[in-house]
């Protein structure tokens, strides 16, 4: 098991820069998710860690050792692919044992290790079968087995559940996390699905346009997004942004939204007047007749225990997550009350969060 460090990692393909200057450290035994929309550079970063792609600049350290230009086979890491990449000309046991065969291990020892791995994944009954006969989930288990059998320093997974259907994905999420608890291996997991990342990872790196926007625990990322991109990307529906223009004074506890005063946590920096955005998650909004922010109900989406109500305000359309029992009439004028301690402020120009009082400050990646 190992610590992975990435320093100033950059990768360009001709004109296009896929990854620009990433820096992060993945501690030993951490389940680390790289999350972002497609084309954000997360897979490229993972492939550079694996040695399938060479960086244009920067360093990759595995347990303090520089492996930047070492070939993939010499890094002692395992890779799980989205499309499983099981060899069609081999049966299940041969597929799992393949990495050991590459290392030149004896046949009997390979058989024992394959058995042991299969037991761990509960796929012993599949060993002699053809890979083409397996279901999606079993294929993924076999692919995991092939990764685990070598007991590598780290697991790298590139959207391993992306090819499974939704129901099964949920089940495999649980299995993967349980497996991680049992073997405690450093895992780097690439996904564009925030639910996968939130439910499994210890640490999440949110990436956008080749940059790491924020690194933190799922709670940190959700509660204290470092940028408007993270706030918008995480959460469904995403965080609401109410745009306004104003200067800020350190120590203030309110901002003026077009003549309406809204309470916020204590501001920790001074700023000249600039376009700003007030961020509030849908679940932190309540209907209150006396509230100064007012708007007209545009629509409601029933979701069982809750409903998403969209309200047109002077500051833009706002989505609120309310209990299903709250009566809502389309076209009715309502007041919106924000839970002040949950409000975030962003600088629209840079997209970054403005420092305000809350437990620990948001961290810029």
């Amino acid at each position, binding site marked *: 098991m190992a610590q992975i460090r990435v320093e100033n990692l950059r990768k360009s393909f001709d004109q296009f820069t896929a990854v620009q200057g990433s820096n992060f450290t993945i501690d030993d035994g951490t389940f680390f998710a790289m999350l972002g929309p497609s084309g954000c550079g997360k*897979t490229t970063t993972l492939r550079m860690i*694996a040695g399938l792609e060479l960086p244009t600049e920067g360093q990759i350290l595995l347990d303090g050792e520089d492996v930047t230009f070492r*070939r993939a*086979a010499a890094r002692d890491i395992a890779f799980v*692919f*989205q*499309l499983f*990449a099981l060899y069609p000309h081999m049966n299940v046991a041969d597929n799992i044992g393949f990495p050991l065969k*590459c290392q030149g291990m004896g046949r009997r020892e390979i058989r024992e290790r394959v058995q042991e791995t299969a037991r761990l994944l509960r796929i012993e009954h599949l060993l002699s079968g053809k890979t083409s006969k397996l279901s999606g989930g079993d294929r993924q288990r076999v692919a995991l087995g092939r990764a685990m059998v070598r007991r590598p320093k780290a697991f790298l997974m590139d959207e391993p559940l992306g090819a499974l259907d939704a129901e099964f994905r949920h089940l495999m999420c649980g299995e993967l996390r349980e497996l991680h608890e049992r073997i405690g291996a450093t895992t780097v997991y690439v996904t564009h699905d925030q639910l996968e990342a939130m439910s499994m990872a210890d640490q999440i790196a949110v990436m956008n346009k080749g940059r790491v926007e924020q690194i933190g625990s799922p709670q940190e990322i959700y509660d204290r997004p470092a940028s408007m991109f993270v706030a918008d990307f995480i959460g469904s529906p995403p965080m609401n942004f109410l745009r306004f223009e104003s200067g800020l004074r350190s120590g203030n506890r309110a901002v003026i939204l077009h003549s309406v005063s809204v309470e916020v946590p204590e501001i920790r920096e001074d700023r000249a007047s600039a376009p700003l955005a007030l961020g509030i998650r849908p679940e932190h909004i309540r209907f209150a007749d006396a509230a100064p922010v007012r708007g007209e109900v545009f629509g409601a989406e029933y979701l069982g225990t809750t409903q998403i109500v969209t309200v047109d305000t002077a500051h833009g359309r706002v989505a609120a997550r309310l209990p299903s029992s709250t009566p809502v009439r389309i076209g009715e004028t309502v007041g919106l009350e924000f839970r002040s301690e949950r409000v975030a402020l962003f600088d629209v120009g840079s997209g970054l969060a403005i420092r305000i009082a809350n437990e620990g400050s948001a961290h810029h990646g």
Partner: protein
Amino acid sequence: MTAAVAKSALAKSTAHSIVEASPRAKAVASSLVILYAVISILPLLWIGATAFKSQSDAIAYPPKVIFEPTLEGFVNLFTVRTRQTPDFIAKLPPPETWYDKLVRQHDMVIAGPSKVVPRFVNSLIIGFGSTFLAVFLGTLAAYAFSRFRIPLADDLLFFILSTRMMPPVAVAIPIYLMYRQLNLTDTRLGMILLYTAVNVSLAVWLLKGFIDEIPREYEEAALVDGYTRLQALRKVVLPQAVTGIAATAIFCLIFSWNEYAFAVLLTSGEAQTMPPFIPFIIGEGGQDWPAVAAATTLFVVPIVLFTVLLRKHLLRGITFGAVRK
């Protein structure tokens, strides 16, 4: 990239027709296929039959479908004979073999073996040699074009294809002059190199298509698991590209086996292949159609065998079952 793989996989899975053809449509389709097969195989059968006819039966009008088979054509193909007077033949000791006897019926004696065997061997060496080289080089080049970032890859591929755009006649004279300088005229090596050069462009293009279809993840998994690039190519990519390699090999062999224009121009003795040799059989002592037909029949055999042997690979079509489609 993975998304692109998934996309192409998806497109393929929907390409299958869902509607089952009606029995009548099937009957019409199969009778058309059978009709076409009969039309295309008839000339071959006719050549095969002619090889076993006597000279007079071969040119009989109306054509003889039923005839008395004889090996005269084959004997004439494999031997050189001289015409003698019946008196001379009567004075000879009795014939030792069945073919001596057969020849003497036509007032001839066998003077020695013909050149058909060495020519046939030339064809085998040049045909299979150039096929092997073209497929070997083509596989390596196709793999590189398919997997690595090669500067000007598209232009290079077009250049490779462009070598096939000119008819052989257009390049025949330059090649002839070049070969004379290099002392390659009428050598097996020269012919192998020439056919390889022509075939390799076809091989690169065909194989690149096949290798593009194999998801990169297979080799990448092998690379991570401990193989070198070359091992991954040999043990992971090639087993999956067998279908494509077999098809390419057949195309290359058919070309170099049948090639006539360059062979006529560049070979005359030593390295002559069958295609320019067969017309020579007609010449001596009247038109010996059964001998020509016998040569043609023998000429077709290796290519049919080769195709039948590789057919298994062509049809089996390794299923990429391990990747979800």
